């Protein structure tokens, strides 16, 4: 099984964990992306939503599990075929929630290009933006290195 290990800068990433954990907590009972299910049978819709929430929770748990003792001792996190899909989806969910909850005051273009005046942002928004960028970087790493394995999955 192919595995990639990435050494992260502990001093940069560790301070982001509390906000990422808080955002995961905020996703409890809430879907990250708005879903338009109005024309579904109500019973089917309820089951659909419940299963999506369960999956979202599982994915976020696997994402947070990457930040274990190995991470705190050396800054290393690992991805392989076993956790890559979950981590990819969890990153998407957390980014979507961060966008809605913490970064709502920023324009899409500014977020996409990263052309933000850091001095004009509150510390909280700065941290949220760093999380947002970090999660995108994790996604890009996984897609670049495990693309073939994911497609075979």
């Amino acid at each position: 099984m192919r595995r990639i290990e990435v050494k992260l800068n502990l001093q940069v990433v560790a301070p982001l964990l509390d906000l990422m954990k808080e955002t995961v907590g905020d996703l409890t009972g809430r879907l990250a992306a708005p879903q338009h299910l109005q024309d579904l049978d109500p019973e089917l819709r309820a089951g659909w939503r419940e299963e999506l929430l369960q999956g979202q929770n599982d994915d976020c748990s696997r994402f947070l599990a990457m930040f274990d003792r190995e991470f705190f001792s050396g800054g290393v996190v690992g991805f392989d075929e076993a956790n890559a899909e979950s981590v990819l989806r969890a990153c998407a969910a957390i980014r979507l929630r961060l966008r809605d909850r913490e970064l709502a005051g920023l324009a899409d273009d500014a977020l996409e290009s990263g052309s933000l005046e850091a001095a004009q942002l509150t510390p909280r928004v700065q941290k949220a933006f760093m999380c947002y960028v970090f999660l995108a970087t994790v996604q890009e790493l996984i897609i670049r290195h495990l693309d073939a394995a994911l497609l075979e999955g």
Partner: protein
Amino acid sequence: MSPTTARTAPAPASRPETEPALAGLWRVVVLNDPVNLMSYVVLVFRRVFGFDEPTARRHMLEVHEQGRSIVWTGVREKAEAYVFTLHQWHLTAILVPDEAH
């Protein structure tokens, strides 16, 4: 490739067997969102629908530039399974009747 990935769509068991409004063909439409990465959307399209890279990229660009892309058309039950899978990947996807049929 199976329309569902990590999990299966809830079985639509509660629906009556014959329901004229649900008959015919249905489109799976993906709507734009400003958050998900282009590379992520391409991967999801390839993973879920088995598209080759150029096809997945074409649909992704359609979503990005036109706000939506029809990624699949077919029977309701399978369309629902695809939408469910896209929701698992946090893409905004909807089902719309295919008016051409």
